[in-house]
């Protein structure tokens, strides 16, 4: 009987995936762990409180490590606006402003999108992960991880994260407050591919963020992804003009 219990325990332990490794692999498909990345996002808000006449936004993002620079390419009346984030420091500038304005992390990008949603994801570094259980999402076997922020720097205090067992990419996320209250959720598609470290890896092509309390949705579509080193001076606020 004891032998059976031990065997059962060993089997369970052997089957339980390493959450840190799962996160590292999932991060790469969302820009994490790469030397530098440049890509574009088309952002569109929808829902009953959204003005359907509002044009979609097109953003150019440059990211490396803890830093990211987001430049608005469209619509015309926001063109040239730039948001710089270096760790927890954030600045915004736009045509007509005489110098960059420091802003708090609470400043949202548009609709449901926080800067942390569109920048490269480094959950493996920013969160401690615990494996909860296996769960199917749209019929696909996934590992469900519970993530807890390691520092105040993280965009969210807690995240429930579903990672495909077969593909190794995140397919769904639920973002929560410190008390566990659901703030919003997100679904991911991976129609893009890029060359990184000598192999072809999937990269996120679409992210749909849904508000927990309303029908508001923000859709992010990723394109023109290039892996390349971005110089440190790109993320220097004295060059943010």
């Amino acid at each position: 009987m004891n032998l059976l219990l031990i065997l059962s325990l060993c089997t369970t332990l052997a089957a339980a995936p390493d959450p840190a490794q799962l996160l590292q692999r999932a991060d790469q498909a969302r820009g994490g762990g790469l030397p530098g990345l440049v890509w574009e996002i088309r952002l569109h808000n929808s829902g009953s409180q959204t003005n359907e006449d509002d044009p979609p936004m097109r953003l150019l993002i440059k990211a490396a490590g803890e830093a990211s620079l987001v430049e608005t390419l469209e619509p015309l009346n926001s063109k040239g606006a730039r948001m710089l984030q270096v760790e927890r420091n954030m600045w915004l500038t736009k045509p007509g402003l005489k110098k960059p304005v420091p802003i708090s992390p609470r400043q949202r990008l548009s609709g449901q999108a926080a800067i942390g949603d569109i920048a490269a994801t480094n959950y493996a570094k920013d969160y401690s992960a615990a494996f909860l259980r296996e769960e199917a999402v749209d019929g696909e076997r996934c590992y469900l991880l519970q993530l807890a922020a390691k520092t105040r720097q993280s965009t969210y205090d807690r995240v429930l994260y579903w990672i495909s067992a077969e593909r190794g990419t995140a397919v769904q996320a639920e973002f929560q407050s410190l008390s566990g209250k659901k703030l919003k959720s997100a679904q991911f598609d991976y129609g893009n591919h890029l060359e990184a470290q000598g192999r072809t890896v999937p990269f996120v092509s679409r992210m749909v963020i849904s508000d927990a309390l309303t029908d508001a949705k923000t859709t992010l579509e990723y394109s023109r992804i290039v892996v390349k080193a971005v110089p440190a001076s790109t993320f220097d606020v004295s060059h943010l003009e």
Partner: protein
Amino acid sequence: MNARVPLLLALAVRAAAGDPFQASGTGELWGYATATDRVVELPTPQWTGEARGDLRLTREGAEVVLRPLVFEQHNPEPFADVDQAYLSQAYARIQLDGGLTFTGGRELLTWGPGNLRSPSNPLYFDAGRAEPLREVPGVDLARLTWTHGPVTAMVAREQDAGRMDRATTPGPASLAKLDLRGQDSLASLIVANQVWGAPFYGGFAQATLAEAWLAYGEIGSGQRPQDPSRKTTSLLGATYTLVNGQTLGLEWLRDGHGAAQPAAVAVQAGALTGRDHASLLWQSNLQDSGHYWRVMWTTNLQDQGSQVLAYGELSLSRRITGFVSVTRNLGGEDSEFASVFRTSVTLGCKCFVF
């Protein structure tokens, strides 16, 4: 533009020669009318048209930025019309080896978190951030910046005040600036030589205290042309971001060079001549693309006079944005704000050409 600066610009462009440049930029046409309930002699109404460009040529490791401006203003008799066309900024920037970046040309060299004024900056004490429609031109300079992790060091030589008011902007001057960035903070020290005849020492710091709170301060010690004795000017501020992205801000400014009795000195529209000021700012989410508004209340703590500035922009179509700016000065006739004008209203629109 000073003769050495175009040379620096040309050298930087030549050094950046190689791969083809990619062109991008924005172009805007502005038209607006301003009416003022004047106290001193100010032209009213004013009819103004502007064309503002922001043109960029970029390639790997290099960038050329041109910001031309055409300004036409019709003023009633006896005031003369104003016709100007100039390069507000024109500089080239190249990335060198070892984290070095060189910038040469005419550049707006502003820094610091202060909104009302920027005491840590000897070139742009008044960067015009409190005036949404004001255009602030660059100064002619060459600067070298070194970035390594959380440290950024900069040395700069300002050759000429460019189109800045020479009565308020010194030149030439040499500057050194050292930035140290933390995870959620930034601190900077500034030293400048020969600003109105004496060294200038300044610094600023900002910190993100929580998800929604920012606290900051700026300080500067030096001389001014109208006050040759060394004085210290400081600013303290904090902002709070609401859940909807709107921002509330509070600032306190003590200008050591300011007059204890502002009405005793010559007043100038837009200038703060008093010693102690406080301001409250409430503005919309800067990231909203359909509209922008701000309400700013500034008070002179000596004479109890104050100013309320309300500014709003609303997108009327994909290319047209309308804007309105209303300024109301409150206080006695000899107070700093109300001694210039009581009410000013500006109404206009911007056309985004490209």
